[in-house]
């Protein structure tokens, strides 16, 4: 009979129990490594789950100050009436099922030499491997008259789903008939490139019913955007785009659309071409950078993003540190990619714990977006890695402009987008 140690047996039982859906009971050895994950969003939670699925002999700690997570994918639907609770999760289930230690706190500082974190409440937390997935940092002071305080109260961004999503929804609902909403996308790259245009498109659809003379003006820091051809085509069909009856107008950076100044009292914005625009709702999306924690601890080396080796998303600055999601230097920033990066990191840490080299990674960004309740779109994107650097291997949007109108496809892709969001939330949290 084959000898099997108690620990191995328990491990096997642990692996078996996951098939049945019960909690996964780790069996920690004396030397079990400590993996600490900062950020309980898509990147952080997928790393925790996917690491536990392949390794029951590791301590996994997640540090996240909020007790409820609100998914950004789908949150534009909340602006036009969906219930926000559909997009929210608590951490209890993940904590129990994947045996995570959840710490409700904020990380204040990192001592890379001692491999120790200091939290806001003064706790010290040691790590063997550190995964940083804290979301983006926001810059407010490059628009005159704007500040974090204003961004939290009146001139909202709603670029981290949750409280602000509901506040912006209420502002949209309170607009007078014939009112104007300004949406100002920041310069690329920023979290979820199609989202400002999706937001504009959804609100315009809502206005057609509730505020038919209302108008959206997109004041852009960019000369173009993802799904541009598809959105413009749809807006021409549905929103009289390009005519004087248009309910959506887009002023690109080439036309001087970037917002330079905001006056919150008089509710006006000034844009690069010198024009001043009055609006009832001003939704400025701040320039994104790496999270301030990464800037403060030197991981960005004075640049906007944390430099990583794309082979395993490890920091190029500090040992045993991984950076994923919006803060990492990665051409595009989406939840889909943050999840892929988390899976890559989980496998890389697992390999290292077994004295193996991390395997070859693969990152895909198969995004589904909507222009309205009857128009879905898809982007298929693949990044491969060679010598630590990314190569864009595929980027294709559908419907292709050469494709004939296909009403069924348009509707199908809306259903696909909604179902993707549902599966994705479960992939991250169940």
């Amino acid at each position, binding site marked *: 009979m084959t000898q099997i140690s108690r620990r191995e047996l328990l491990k096997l039982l642990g692996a078996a129990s996951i*098939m049945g*859906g019960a909690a996964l009971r780790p069996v920690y050895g004396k030397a079990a490594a400590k993996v600490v994950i900062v950020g309980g969003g898509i990147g952080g939670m997928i790393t925790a*789950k*996917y690491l536990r*699925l392949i390794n029951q002999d590791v301590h996994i700690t997640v540090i996240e100050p909020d007790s*409820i997570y609100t998914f950004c994918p789908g949150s534009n639907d909340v602006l036009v009436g969906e219930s926000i*609770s*559909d997009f929210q*999760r*608590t951490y*209890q*289930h993940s904590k129990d*099922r994947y045996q995570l230690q959840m710490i409700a706190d904020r990380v204040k500082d990192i001592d890379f030499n001692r491999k120790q974190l200091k939290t806001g409440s003064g706790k010290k937390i040691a790590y063997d491997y550190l995964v940083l997935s804290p979301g983006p940092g926001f810059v407010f002071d490059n628009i005159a008259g704007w500040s974090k305080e204003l961004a939290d109260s009146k001139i909202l961004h709603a670029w981290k789903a949750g409280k602000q999503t509901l506040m912006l929804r209420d502002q949209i609902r309170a607009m007078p008939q014939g009112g104007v909403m300004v949406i100002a996308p920041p310069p690329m790259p920023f979290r979820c*490139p199609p989202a400002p245009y999706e937001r504009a498109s959804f609100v315009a659809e809502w206005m057609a019913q509730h505020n038919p003379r209302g108008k959206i003006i997109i004041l852009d820091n960019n*000369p*173009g*955007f*993802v799904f*541009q*051809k598809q959105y413009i085509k749809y807006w021409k069909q549905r929103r009289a785009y390009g005519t004087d009856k248009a309910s959506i107008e887009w002023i690109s950076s080439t036309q001087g659309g970037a917002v330079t100044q905001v006056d919150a009292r008089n509710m006006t914005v000034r844009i690069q071409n010198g024009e001043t625009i009055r609006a009832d709702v001003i939704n400025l999306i701040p320039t994104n950078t790496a999270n301030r924690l990464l800037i403060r601890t030197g991981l960005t080396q004075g640049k906007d993003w944390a430099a990583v080796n794309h082979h395993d998303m490890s920091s190029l600055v500090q040992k045993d540190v991984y950076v994923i999601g919006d803060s990492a230097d990665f*051409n*595009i920033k989406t939840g889909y990619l943050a999840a*892929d990066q988390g*899976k890559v990191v989980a496998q890389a840490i697992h390999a290292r714990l077994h004295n193996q080299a991390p*395997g*070859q990674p*693969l*990152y*895909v960004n*198969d995004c589904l977006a909507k222009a309205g309740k009857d128009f879905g779109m*898809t982007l*298929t994107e*693949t*990044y*491969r890695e060679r010598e630590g*650097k*990314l*190569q*864009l*291997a*595929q*980027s*294709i949007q*559908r419907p*292709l402009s050469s494709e004939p109108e296909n009403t069924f*496809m348009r509707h*199908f*892709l809306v*259903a*696909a987008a909604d*179902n*993707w969001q*549902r*599966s*994705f*939330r*479960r*992939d991250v*949290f*169940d």
Partner: protein
Amino acid sequence: MKRLGLYGLLLLTSHFVMADENSFTGEVYVNPEQYQGDPPISGKMAADTCSACHGTQGRIFNEIFPPLAGLPKATFIKMMMDFKTGKRPSFIMNNIARTYTQQEIERMADYFSRQSAKPWFVKSEKKA
């Protein structure tokens, strides 16, 4: 023919070009067989890129996305190769299948065939 010509051109131009904002309006396609000499991507690594839609281990499914877990190897390979060549039309899968090499598809097939066909932890969405 026209289509092949376009992709051929993209293949030449995009191979050495890093992703930038051009990818927002333009189309990029590199024949994945070009990467055949690279270190192999494991079946699990490739299969994990499916899970956002098809669920963890291919075991979460809904009205649109079918399960992949437990599919016989040959079934998965035939399906993906038919998506890849366009023999089987799909709004989403044709483009996705074209991004993987045949060997990667075979390794994914192997991975999914070894997963339990039971749905992933049947539990309705837990709301806050």
